[in-house]
């Protein structure tokens, strides 16, 4: 089931919420059970075949968590290792079986048939959440005795399919709190507003950018400078608003149930450097990779060289997590390389005491955004060759072409442009204009407007902190006023009008 569907909005969500708050009057346990049941229904709507897998994973990890918690000495580590091997093995089977078989076939010139395993939706997220739980249990940070709360923690539908990746320690106290079981208009109004903004990001912006990104990556045969950059920027903003919208919706829905989810996005395209970018993009995954991969590898505690190796390893594995393909590995490697360069540059700049003024900040931001866009090409392209073709165009090596229909509107400027080497090709005028219109809209919102958390800056609607300024301008701050009810109502209406073409979220495939 998709958040951006009529079924979810007008059937699932009201029934779940009404049932939850009515049951909560009688028993918190029954309410939690109802929410867990609803979450399983939400998951099963996509494919009920994988509910046993989800439940099996939950029972297994809960049981292993008990074993780890009760064991002492080396046995503790053995239980943890066994659990992690099983979890990662399951993930590897579903996500990477065909990738490894293809690799083996290529290396050994063999012809082992592919398994064509269907990836259970959300498996990465519920597996990562449970790995974090097991490690925290091993480290003595948590001790969970209530199975029902554990089931709810894993299956909780606002986060189940595409994150955010949750920490046991930040969720369990909330499931204990009596206030979480009482309906509150404050929670509802704030949650609804966040949800509406997220829904609008998805259906009004991301879904309108999607055809233009898809055209470049799947259909285009002209890769001149403006076409290539237009399509790549369309994808960059599509992914941004798709994922950011999903995260907002998850936070908003959860808040209606009185539960705060961790912040997952903090205007990452405003990042001044790639280190900053990774503090703002998919924050809960970055946190997971930092705490459960980078730090165990040694982090920065074993000297600068090991630190860079650890960064590269973490980003390579992070890339591979996003998809079983070489392009994802290249994407991860590029970001690893960016991070190494960024850390190296920081060290050198500190040593040389280089000035860092406003101009430098703008240059740094532009360079970061361009680097991120270059990496997105590998993330989205269907093959390495396709990615290289698009990068070739982005570098201007396929020339600077514009549609002839636009050339006709330019008057004498057209002749001037032709003298500078700009060519004019037939067809594609509408596509070109629409692509850039949506890119400008996406760019304006991403770069110039406050993010949802800043708009909701009067409230701590999500867990975690933002890197950017805490509050938006006063007039941009949400409050339960008539003015804001008109804004949110209008946004909701616009989004409802756009629900007729429900499109899946990009992060569902990871």
């Amino acid at each position, binding site marked *: 089931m998709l958040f951006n569907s009529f079924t979810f909005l007008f059937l699932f969500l009201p029934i779940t919420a009404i049932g939850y708050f009515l049951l909560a009057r009688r028993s918190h346990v029954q309410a939690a059970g109802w929410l867990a049941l609803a979450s399983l229904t939400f998951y099963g709507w996509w494919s009920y075949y994988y509910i046993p897998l989800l439940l099996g994973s939950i029972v297994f990890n809960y049981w292993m968590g008990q074993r780890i918690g009760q064991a002492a000495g080396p046995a503790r580590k053995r239980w943890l290792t066994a659990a992690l091997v099983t979890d990662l093995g399951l993930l590897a089977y579903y996500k990477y079986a065909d990738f490894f078989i293809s690799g083996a076939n290529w290396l050994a010139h063999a012809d082992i048939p592919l398994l064509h395993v269907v990836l259970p939706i959300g498996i990465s997220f519920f597996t990562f959440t449970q790995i974090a739980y097991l490690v925290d249990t091993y480290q003595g940070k948590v001790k969970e005795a209530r199975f029902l709360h554990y089931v709810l923690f894993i299956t909780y539908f606002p986060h189940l399919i595409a994150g955010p990746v949750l920490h046991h320690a930040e969720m369990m106290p909330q499931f204990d709190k009596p206030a979480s079981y009482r309906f509150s*208009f404050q929670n509802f109004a704030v949650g609804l507003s966040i949800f509406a903004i997220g829904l609008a990001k998805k259906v009004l912006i991301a879904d309108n950018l999607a055809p233009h990104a898809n055209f470049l990556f799947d259909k285009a045969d002209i890769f001149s400078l403006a076409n290539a950059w237009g399509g790549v920027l369309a994808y960059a903003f599509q992914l941004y608003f798709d994922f950011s919208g999903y995260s907002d919706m998850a936070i908003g829905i959860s808040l209606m149930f009185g539960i705060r989810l961790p912040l997952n996005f903090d205007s990452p395209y405003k990042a001044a450097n790639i280190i900053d970018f990774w503090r703002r993009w998919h924050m809960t995954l970055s946190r997971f990779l930092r705490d459960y991969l980078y730090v165990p590898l040694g982090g920065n505690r074993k000297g600068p060289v090991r630190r860079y190796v650890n960064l590269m390893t973490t980003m390579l594995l992070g890339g591979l997590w996003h998809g079983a393909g070489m392009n994802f590995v290249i994407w991860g490697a590029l970001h690893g390389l960016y991070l190494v360069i960024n850390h190296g540059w920081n060290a050198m700049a500190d040593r040389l005491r280089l000035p860092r003024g406003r101009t430098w900040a703008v240059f740094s931001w532009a360079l970061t955004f361009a680097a991120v866009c270059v990496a997105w090409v590998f993330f989205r392209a269907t093959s390495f060759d396709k990615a290289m073709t698009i990068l070739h165009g982005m570098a201007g090596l396929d020339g600077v072409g514009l549609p002839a229909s636009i050339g006709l509107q330019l008057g004498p400027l057209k002749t001037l442009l032709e003298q500078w080497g700009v060519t004019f090709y*037939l067809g594609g005028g509408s596509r070109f204009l629409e692509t850039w219109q949506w890119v400008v809209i996406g760019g304006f919102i991403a770069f110039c407007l406050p993010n949802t958390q800043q708009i909701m800056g009067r409230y701590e609607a999500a867990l975690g902190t933002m890197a950017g300024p805490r509050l938006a301008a006063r007039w941009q701050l949400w409050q339960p006023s008539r003015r804001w*009810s008109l804004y949110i109502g209008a946004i909701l209406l616009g989004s409802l009008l756009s629900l007729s073409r429900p499109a899946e979220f990009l992060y569902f495939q990871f």
Partner: protein
Amino acid sequence: MEQIQRYDDEAPVLVGAPASAAAQAPVSYKRFTAWCATVVGAGVLLVTGFVAVIDPYHLYGFVDSPALNHVKPLPEQYREQIKLAQATAVRPDLILLGNSRVEVGLDPDSPQVSAHGRTAYNMGLSGTSLTTSERMYVQLRESAAPAAMAVIGVEFLDFLVKPDEAPAAPAASGPLPWQWRFDTLFSIKSLTDALRTVRLQKAADPETMTGRGQTPLRNYNQFARQEGYYAIFQQKAGDNAKTLMRKPHNLFVAGTNRSESIDRLRTLLDTMARDRTEVHLVIYPYHAQLMAMFEEAGLQSTLDDWRQMLVREADAVRARYPNARVNVWDFSGYAGMRCERIPGPGDTRTATRWYWEAGHFKSTLGERILQRILGGETAFGFRLGADTLAANRQRIAAERAQCAGDYPQVFAGARDLVANARASAP
């Protein structure tokens, strides 16, 4: 105290304010929610009311005002469902089936049609094959009486299959039956189309679909004025050349006398024979440029085989249903209108009379097709039968020689276009 404690426990705590501050005006959140619901509710009513009154898809008919909504835009989605609903309302006794060539070129409001006392509807749909035509016809039959006459445009390129092509999988479940009704009333697309409808009333060359399903491409007049017909022909010819490079050269799946398109044609002809519908299969009058590109792509003999196959299928249906009335018309060739001169590069003043571009003829030419089919006196169009295939071949060869002599550039241009497409094919 309990009140304060209660709000202190709530999740979205106010930043930098004491807990009691969050509890100051709990009613305002309720009012906020109520206002949101009111805005959404009122918006839904306004949008649905506006769309129903403007009626951008000819579905409701509450108002028909030249100042407001008489001219309708071309729908981008649910065109099949919209056309079926319109056709059901029109109850035509002459239906026009086919792809964009029919949708654009055959005018159901033609004087030829009304002069013969017929009511026509154009069910042609761009970008579709006979599978869609057959499906639409079957669905129309569920709610309307069979048409007395059907003109079915058959597209040569749709009949080309790979020898190892597997049978087409059954169509995936489409939108729910009610969904298109909902979306055409309440969606961003229906709202923008309603607004577009109001704007279209004053447009010189609007992109429209008529109440009888034709898409007359009048908006191409504007492109022609801005860029010239040469640009339109060249752009489409470039696309056609790429398409031709991807096409196989076979009509049948290996070891059979079948393909998906042939199966659909047989089914459609059988259904119409049972309905006692008089059928006219139409081979489109492609412009000489496109015919020359078929040649350059090596498709000439396949095109000839395809004509024979159509004649065989017509004979077969007559054998299965002795009362069946099926005619095969070949409007393809190189003579006269089909060898129309394409205006030169940069010429934005000369307008073509017969073609928008090589693949799509104008209603002026469509009028000649209807005239011939409806029994008018005209030499345009060749009735194909087993006994006339050889004569037709000679006719086309003679026309080609004439056109090549009169207008050699079109053949040279086609050669270049196909060569370029071949060079850039993956």
